[in-house]
């Protein structure tokens, strides 16, 4: 048994809205070793952010509701903590970087104070000391300390994301969750920020959950990859497992729909159709109507987990009947 920083088991979360019930997460299992990075990949609405928020227990309630499942973070059962205990965990054991740096900073509070706040909460430092420490962290992410006194609107997008990273790292958390940290940034800035994150991750020896829909980003920073679709993890494994030994048709679809830098002439094949209506998930496999390999059973029965190794598994009917089935994949990344 390895030492896991994070263990999510059979997590079901739904949102009860006026229009109906949205089943956001339908049985998620994730395990992550200390110091490792997990890439969580999927389309918008697949449940990546909900998964991330559930680790901090920040899924808005109402309308969100945890139906069942457990999350163990650094040995602590998250679901059983009081709100007060959670406040001590957030920012200290686990921090999160949100998707849009433009909106993730409080516009009316000075940047320095926003960083210092976490420090003063978790390290019980005086205001001056927290600010001094915040300055160090700010400089660590490459921003001159004298900009502490400025407000977020005086920063560019990339700078803001650095500030957010500074906030997240200010108390040296054991797990960092990054929700598409680079999506909203210019491509050139993206690389810088990713580089910074990799560097800091090494330095602090953190585990990380990197949420992204960009497989390139994932390939660059992740050790393990989990592919999400309609509130389920349809395939999970090491980077090599998923990238080289792709098992799930959806994963294959994702690879087919990104440009191949090595083969610029290669045809892009988008996944047809749209993700199923989250208010009304089909009784069988949710990917059924978009899947090139769909069979009759897919319409009626939910697929079950099929393991290929200790780390690599998928949820697809294809392998129930023929374990040796191989996708007709057009391109496979080297």
């Amino acid at each position: 048994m390895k030492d896991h920083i994070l263990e999510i088991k059979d997590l079901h979360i739904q949102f009860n809205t006026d229009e109906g019930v949205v089943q956001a997460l339908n049985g998620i299992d994730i395990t992550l070793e200390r110091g490792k990075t997990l890439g969580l990949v999927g389309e918008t609405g697949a449940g990546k952010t909900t998964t991330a928020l559930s680790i901090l227990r920040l899924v808005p309630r109402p309308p969100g509701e945890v139906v069942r499942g457990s999350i163990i973070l650094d040995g602590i059962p998250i679901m059983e903590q009081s709100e007060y205990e959670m406040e001590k965990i957030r920012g200290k054991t686990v921090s999160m970087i949100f998707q849009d740096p433009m909106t993730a900073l409080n516009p009316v509070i000075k940047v320095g104070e926003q960083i210092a706040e976490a420090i003063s909460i978790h390290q019980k430092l005086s205001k001056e000391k927290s600010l001094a420490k915040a300055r160090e962290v700010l400089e660590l992410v490459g921003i001159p300390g004298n900009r502490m006194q400025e407000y977020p609107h005086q920063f560019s997008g990339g700078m803001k994301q650095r500030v957010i990273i500074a906030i997240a790292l200010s108390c040296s958390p054991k797990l960092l969750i990054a929700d598409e940290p680079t999506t909203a940034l210019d491509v050139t800035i993206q690389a810088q920020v990713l580089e910074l994150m990799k560097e800091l991750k090494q330095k602090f020896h953190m585990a990380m959950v990197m949420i992204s829909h960009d497989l390139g980003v994932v390939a660059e920073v992740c050790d393990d990859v989990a592919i999400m679709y309609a509130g389920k993890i349809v395939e999970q494994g090491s980077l090599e497992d998923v990238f080289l030994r792709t098992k799930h048709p959806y994963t294959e679809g994702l690879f087919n729909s990104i440009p191949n830098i090595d083969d610029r002439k290669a045809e892009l094949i988008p996944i047809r159709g749209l993700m199923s209506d989250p208010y009304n998930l089909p009784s069988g496999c949710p990917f059924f109507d978009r899947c090139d390999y769909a069979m009759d059973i897919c319409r009626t029965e939910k697929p079950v987990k099929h393991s290929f190794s200790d780390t690599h598994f998928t949820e697809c009917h294809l392998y129930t009947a023929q374990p040796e089935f191989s996708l007709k994949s057009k391109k496979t990344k080297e």
Partner: protein
Amino acid sequence: MLIPVMLGVIFLVFFIISLTPGDAASMILGDGATEERIIELRDDMGLDDPLIVQYGRYMWDLLRGNMGDSYSTGRSVAGEIVQRFPNTFKLTVTAIFLSVLISIPIGVISATKQYSLFDNIGMILALVGISMPSFWTGLILIIIFALNLGWFPSGGMKGIMSLVLPAFTLAIASTASITRTTRSSMLEVIRQDYINTAKAKGVSRRKVITRHALGNALIPAVTVIGLEFGILLGGAVLTETVFSWPGIGRLMVESIQRKDTPMVLGCVIIFSLSFSIVNLIIDILYAYIDPRIKANYT
């Protein structure tokens, strides 16, 4: 911005008031006046000059603090307004403080407990609150608290007790709409990413609301407070009438009944000026609570 707008306001009001039928000179001189005296006075007052000339003269006098003399009492309009204005100020400012003190906490609690019983009752009351005409609310409060319970005087201005009912009456509508705005902007704010950022830092729930959410939610609330102040000034006309409060509002109604044109003009101008100044203050306050706005005033 203030000065051109005020010039426009004065011209507009001057123009509207000039539509009043009836001859100012005969109004001042009364029933027994001779034709000659009327003509003489018309000439003195320049009533036969073009409107724009009369406006120019009025502005020139106004700049020197002279708003003319009342037709019915002959007293200086400016003097009368100076005497009455503090009373209106006392009433409206108390009412706006009352509104802010009540509405912001209720709005915040409602938003943080959206769809709770508190929220539902609060929002229904707020809606009823903006639907109640202040003069009626005033009458009902008089019936309950002055006539039946005898806790407060039913009118007049004598000590702090007499301020309670009129200020409360005046505050109801603005309390209701500031509550509604605070709630909805709070709801919007607490869905923002930076609130999640704060929570993810481990900031306690209470501090998330007071430190992170409120500061942002106040920005639209402050705008509404400014607008409400205008509505409040209008409401003062009615509230002062109901409660016999010796302010500018009642002066205006009485002057209208007496056809005392210069006094009506003076009252409208002073109301509009107060409203504009309040909005200026709001703008400054705005810059104070929202660092994104580069204040031109500070």
